[in-house]
């Protein structure tokens, strides 16, 4: 198989990010101290919080690409591909957030699931991502699909501030965010540093996924287009 220079670059970049992520998660699993109240089980934080951040990041990307598809009368097809890639990776990270949250909730809260505002709005985000992918798959490629999906993309992004604020707007079982933009962060140094490292690397891997998946989708579109032309004898 012939790899282009660009393919090799993408491969090594991704391999580097994932190796660093494995390194940070390994140290999070053994080297970082346990937590005073929760003990060892709190370590799932290092997957749960970065996953949630990536789910939000994908929604922001989806929002950006959707706006780009909406403002121009005949938008570039690329924005549609990038939007779909963001939605796919967003669904993955939302499901990962729900799964790790559930695994964390059982030993700490004493329940796998409860319908509080934070959990419910996050579940809605997963449903919205799924609905977006269904909608996108059910329409023929073209400007109409790109515009319709872009409207849905904007709506999906509206859920993100609601999820983020849910723990302060309503009474919930889930605690408020530890990483806040104002005031002191109630988290000890080693825990905070490891969390920030895993967060940054998880975001990097998320961006890599979106990048590679959109390249993949572009190829698929190209093949579909060519096979259609051959079939029509054009």
């Amino acid at each position, binding site marked *: 198989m012939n790899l282009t220079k660009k393919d090799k670059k993408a491969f090594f970049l991704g391999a580097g990010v994932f190796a660093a992520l494995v390194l940070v998660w390994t140290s999070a699993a053994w080297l970082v*101290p*346990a*937590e*005073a109240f929760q003990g060892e089980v709190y370590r799932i934080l290092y997957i749960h919080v970065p996953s949630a951040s990536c789910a939000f990041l994908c929604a922001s990307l989806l929002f950006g690409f959707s706006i780009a598809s909406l403002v121009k009368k005949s938008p570039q097809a690329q924005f549609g591909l990038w939007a779909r890639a963001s939605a796919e990776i967003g669904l993955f990270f939302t499901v990962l957030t729900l799964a790790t949250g559930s695994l964390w909730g059982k*030993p700490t*809260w*004493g329940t796998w699931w409860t319908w509080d505002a934070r959990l419910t709005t996050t579940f809605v985000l997963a449903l919205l991502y799924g609905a977006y992918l269904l909608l996108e798959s059910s329409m023929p490629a073209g400007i109409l699909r790109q515009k319709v999906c872009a409207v849905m993309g904007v709506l999906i992004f509206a859920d993100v501030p609601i999820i983020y604020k849910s723990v302060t*707007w309503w009474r919930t079982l889930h605690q408020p965010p*530890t990483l806040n933009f104002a005031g002191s962060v*109630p988290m000890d140094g080693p825990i905070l540093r490891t969390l920030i490292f895993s967060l940054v690397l998880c975001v990097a891997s998320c961006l890599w996924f979106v990048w590679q998946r959109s390249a993949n989708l572009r190829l698929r579109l190209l093949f579909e287009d060519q096979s259609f032309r051959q079939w029509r004898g054009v």
Partner: protein
Amino acid sequence: MLSRKIKWVVASIIIGGTILALSFVNMDQNSVYFYTPAEAVEKAATLSKENIRVGGMVKVDSVQWDRPKLSLAFILSDLKGTEIHVQHRGTPPDLFKENAGVIVEGSIAAEGNSFLATKLMVKHSEEYRQPEHGGTQADKSLLTKSLAL
């Protein structure tokens, strides 16, 4: 055909309005996730007919755990004088202890003094500390704030 500008304005009003409306709908007391002990006691007569959740703190020296019978009794307090005697059958979560935040699901007696819990959940705060801080959460104000006490 409407102009693009008007369409954008209408779309933003619809989306913004929906978000605002949703946040107000949920502000409604009927859909509150849990009541504070004071609220639950005050409205006990009407709430006793429903399945509700009450959130508060586990009072120090109030926990009675009968292991063979899997029977748990403790006092749910708002740290301001309102106390509810809670009965629960089943093993409590590992993090259930005195001075921990807890949310109970079940039914309150019409007099408001006792509660029969079918589900017991521990609520912790957003604080993460190293083990030398001991087995409790140091900053109680974070927990009481998020329990609306």
